[in-house]
């Protein structure tokens, strides 16, 4: 979103050539991947709407969650036991706080995975509770 705002800014357009813009875009993609702020957590025990509600309620209160995405920053898929969260661009994921919030919601977190730019689940993050 920030990248698009920058590209559409008229002052930016006036002072940069097409080649410079391309280089700038490539650099931005390297430094801030579009979906770098999303993570997927496997959570055991979620089976219905009230489960999703409890998990969402607790996670969305964490300060690093970007509440502008999904439902208050959280998307729950009960069949696959997946919880996708959006983390604010300028904040770090606090896994200990995240796991504590999920447990407080009544469920059991298993592990956390990064998400690629295309939204695919990528790599697990090492974490020992």
């Amino acid at each position, binding site marked *: 979103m920030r990248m698009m705002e920058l590209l559409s800014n008229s002052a930016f357009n006036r002072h940069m050539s097409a080649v410079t813009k391309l280089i700038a875009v490539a650099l931005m993609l390297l430094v801030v991947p579009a979906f770098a702020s999303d993570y997927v957590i496997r959570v*055991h*025990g*979620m*089976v*219905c*709407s*009230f*489960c*999703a*509600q*409890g*998990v969402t*309620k*607790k996670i969305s209160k964490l300060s690093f969650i970007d509440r502008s995405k999904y*439902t208050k920053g959280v*998307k*729950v*898929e*009960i*069949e*696959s*036991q997946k919880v996708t969260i959006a983390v604010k661009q300028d904040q770090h994921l606090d896994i200990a706080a995240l796991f504590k919030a999920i447990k*407080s*919601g*009544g*469920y*059991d977190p298993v592990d956390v995975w990064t998400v690629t730019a295309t939204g695919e689940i990528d790599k697990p993050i090492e974490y020992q509770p």
Partner: protein
Amino acid sequence: MLFASLATKAHQPVMDMAPRWAGGFGFQLRQQHYGSDDLMRGGGSTQNPLGIERFVDTTWLEGVYTFDRSIRATIKIPYLDQRRITTLNGIARRQQNRGIGDVVLGLPLKRYKNQGSMTQNWGITPSIRIPTGSNSGDFPLSDGSWDVGLSVSYAWENPRIYQLYDLYYWHQGSGKRGMQTGNSWGLDVNVGLHPWHDNDENTGIFALWDVSVHHSDSPNAATLTTASGGDRIQTGPVLVYYRDSFMVRAEFKLLLHERVDGTSTSRGNEFSVAFGVAF
């Protein structure tokens, strides 16, 4: 999941398993109806020339607070509207009464196990029924006794299947004016499907089937409430629609088998509808 009139089952946390989150609370309003003009003697119908009948409508206001998923507190406040035609010295007599009934407090304790997409729990729920209902008049709302209940339950659920088994027992204390209602026990089984859930809208339905077995010891002759002794088996569908933290629920219980002690009106079929919300 299901309830019976004054003999409210001990086990039921309001809105089933919700809210499971620590610090969560919720309310449920439930309208229940049962009654019949079928007069029974033992296990069969008998002639009813005087038109003896009994109907009870109860509005339950129920609340729950979740300390954490293993400890909850529940309260159930009934508002009764009961009417019957009974006999006094061989003459039919119409009686009616309405008002707040006996409040039930419960402490559901649960041990959960989550594994993959399955969640199961064992529960034990001690309950107490407080005689807040009026025990005066010729058709009182309460027998005036303090009663204690205990239930043991097991529930197993995944995103597609739900099942609950619950065994409960109520011990009736001595009432006012010499009234003594009989102790009761029962078994509730709920099994069914969770055929549809939309993750994006966080909404879905449950379609369950309920089987309830209930036994009550006979009340003594001084008992003037709706209480009666005997056994019954009820069964029927339960449909639940939910969205986020809001739930609507409807259930019908067909009276499959009934045996009454002495002569008494049948309980009849039962219907209830409820809506609840959790915060």
